[in-house]
């Protein structure tokens, strides 16, 4: 919502927990600047590292 409208809109429309869970999200864009559904966060990177170490 902060991208399409602003943070105030996000606070009106969405629960605070959902907003908090999305802090630090980085979208992965394609060469044509469209989004293919991939994204990452620092937390996500830590989880991926854990999985890599223990399962990979």
């Amino acid at each position, binding site marked *: *919502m902060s991208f399409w409208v602003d943070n105030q809109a996000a606070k009106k429309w969405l629960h605070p927990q959902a907003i908090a869970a999305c802090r630090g999200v980085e979208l992965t864009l394609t060469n044509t600047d469209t989004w*293919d559904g991939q994204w990452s966060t620092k937390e996500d990177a830590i989880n991926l590292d854990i999985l890599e170490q223990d399962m990979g």
Partner: protein
Amino acid sequence: MDTPAEQSPNPPTMAKLKLLYLAQKGEDKTVIWLAWALAEEEECPVITSEADFPDDIKSFRRYTDRLRPRSGKAVLWFVLLIACDDNLDNLTSTMTSTMNWWYKDNHLACYLYDVQDSDDAVEVGTLAFSGVHCDHFRLARVLDPIFRSHHGGARLKFGVTVKMSKGYPKNEGNFNFPKDRLAIVSADRMDAQPVRTILYREFNCHPDPRQRPGQYNFCLVPAPDMVSLGSNAHSNRERMQQKHSAVLDSLVPLYTTDIKDLDLPYTKDGFTYTLREIILDVRHPLGSDLATQLYFSCDKAVNGRNLPASSSILRAYTDRRTAAEALLRILPHM
């Protein structure tokens, strides 16, 4: 009512009805039962307490549209005119009712009549592409002012329910989303034609779904009784039903509890937005200006068992499922 042959089912039926009344009274002190035919309301006393309850089935008949304690059918349905101050749903046997336990214990069921303030409701039609993903309470709220504005400010008696409709293809799998359960619009017989005409203009005559009432991407399919005989309505209806089935087959349901309000307006730089508009306007691939929508519908989830509080349901096209799921997870970021 199961009674042995040669034994009248009337007294046990009356006893059961009295038990129902007392159970409802126990749930809501303000509940009253009124005479069925609205015209007779003043001639027939209102049942406000146990003492008012009729002693025999003959006196009770005035309170129902029909009452045949033994008709040969496995399940008997009849209609009662009930009023109360609190939530009417709590007098029914729905999953959310506070007295659904009583109906289960007594092997009975009770649902709201299709049109709440009518004693002669007829089906106007079904809304193709709707279904259990549709919040029919919101749909009714959206339609009411539209009907009034097209009818000189006068209210039309109508109701919207989500239930099974004959003629629509059944599912071969995914029984949580039955394709033959969809939004059915009913109206008082006197109001059925204007309701049909307004629904047709508002839904079928707007090619852009965002211009339709409530941004619902539905199409009216008139009920068989609303179409004259001898026309080719039957084959056209079948084609529409097949199309409804094909569209619903191409969709996947996605749930989220992140959304607080889909329709709260927010104004910025002179433009007013709602979350529903923004979600339905998302193009695929995201960031492109292609005409391809990512989501087919979004609504509060009101139909279904064990729904978490504040659930919303979005339906996305199967071929865009990954992007639709990913976007839903990071909706606040967008």
